[in-house]
C-alpha cells in the first residue's frame, strides 16, 4: 500500500508531516523518519539497558511500532516524546524479564578509555559510578538518564514514564541516595 511516486518525502519534512505520510503507508517517509530518530533512540536504550545488543533490539521494536501505529497516532505530543516513551517502556519490560548482569554491561557505559594502567583517579570514580548506575532499579535509572543525560525537565520525564512530577522527584532522590550508598560502600572497601 505505497503511495504514488508523485511527491517524495524530503529529509527536512517535519515529524508530523512524515507521520501523516506513514499513516497512508508511505515506506519512504518511514525510512526518512527512522534515519532521523534511530541514533538517539539507540543511544537512550543503550544507556538504560547497558547492553548494545539489547539496545538494538529495543530500537528496532520501537521503530516498528512507529510504522504499525502510525494510522492511530494522534499528534497530541511531539513524536520524539512519544518515541522516547516507547523506548523507555520497552527497556523497562526487558529489564523485568531478564535478570540483571551488572558489571560487564556497566563497562559499556563509559567512553572507550586508554588502558587500565593509565586510568586516573577520576576515571576510576567514573567507572564505579557507572557500575552503581547500572545497579539501580530500572525506573530510577531511566529517570536519571533522561534528566541528567538528555537534560529533560521533570515534567517531560513524568510524561515519558507515565507518572507524576513528584514521583519523578522521588525517583531521582532515591536514585541518588542509592548511588551515594553504593559509592560509599566502594570507598569503604578501598579504605579497608
Amino acid at each position, binding site marked *: 500500500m505505497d503511495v504514488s511516486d508523485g511527491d517524495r518525502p524530503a529529509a527536512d519534512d517535519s515529524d508530523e508531516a512524515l507521520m501523516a505520510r506513514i499513516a497512508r503507508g508511505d515506506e519512504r517517509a518511514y525510512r526518512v523518519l527512522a534515519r532521523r530518530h534511530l541514533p538517539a533512540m539507540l543511544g537512550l536504550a543503550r*544507556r538504560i539497558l547497558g547492553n548494545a545488543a539489547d539496545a538494538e533490539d529495543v530500537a528496532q521494536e520501537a521503530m516498528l511500532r512507529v510504522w504499525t*501505529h*502510525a494510522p492511530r497516532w494522534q499528534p497530541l505530543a511531539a513524536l520524539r516524546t512519544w518515541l522516547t516513551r516507547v523506548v523507555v517502556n520497552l527497556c523497562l519490560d526487558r529489564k523485568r524479564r531478564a535478570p540483571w548482569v551488572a558489571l560487564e554491561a556497566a563497562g559499556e557505559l563509559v567512553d572507550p578509555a586508554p588502558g587500565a594502567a593509565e586510568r586516573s583517579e577520576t576515571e576510576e*570514580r567514573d567507572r564505579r559510578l557507572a557500575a552503581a548506575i547500572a545497579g539501580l532499579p530500572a525506573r530510577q535509572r531511566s529517570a536519571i538518564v533522561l534528566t541528567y543525560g538528555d537534560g529533560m525537565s521533570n515534567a517531560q520525564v513524568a510524561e515519558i514514564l507515565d507518572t507524576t512530577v513528584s514521583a519523578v522527584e522521588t525517583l531521582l532522590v532515591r536514585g541518588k541516595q542509592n*548511588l551515594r550508598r553504593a*559509592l560509599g560502600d566502594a570507598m569503604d572497601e578501598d579504605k579497608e
Partner: protein
Amino acid sequence: MTMNDDFLDAALKRQTQAPATDEAAVARVLARLAGPLPRQKRPFWRLPTVLLDWQFAPAWPRLAALGACAALGFFIGIAGIDRPIGGFTLSNSTTGAGFGAVLFEPEAVTGAQP
C-alpha cells in the same frame, strides 16, 4: 571521595550523556527494518467513517438518498407504521354493523340465523 550534590550531579551528567552515534549499530538496525514491514494497525472506525461522511457538497446522489429517506420517514410518521397505507381495513366492510355482524351473519344459502 567527597559525595556532595554538586560532585554527584556533575558525575551523573558526565556518565549519562548521550554517547557518540554508533553508525554501525544504526546501519544494522536500518538493515533489519529494510525488509517487508508488518501490516499497519488501522483504527476500527475507519470503515464506518465512509458511511458517516456528511460532506454533501459535490455528492448529489447522497443528497438524493438523504431526501428520499427523509420523505419516507415523513410519510411513515404521518400514516403510522401500524396502519396499512392502501386505506382498506376490515372495519370498512362492516361499517355500521359492528363486530357482531361478522360473528352472527345469516347463512348465505339457507338464511338460517346461528
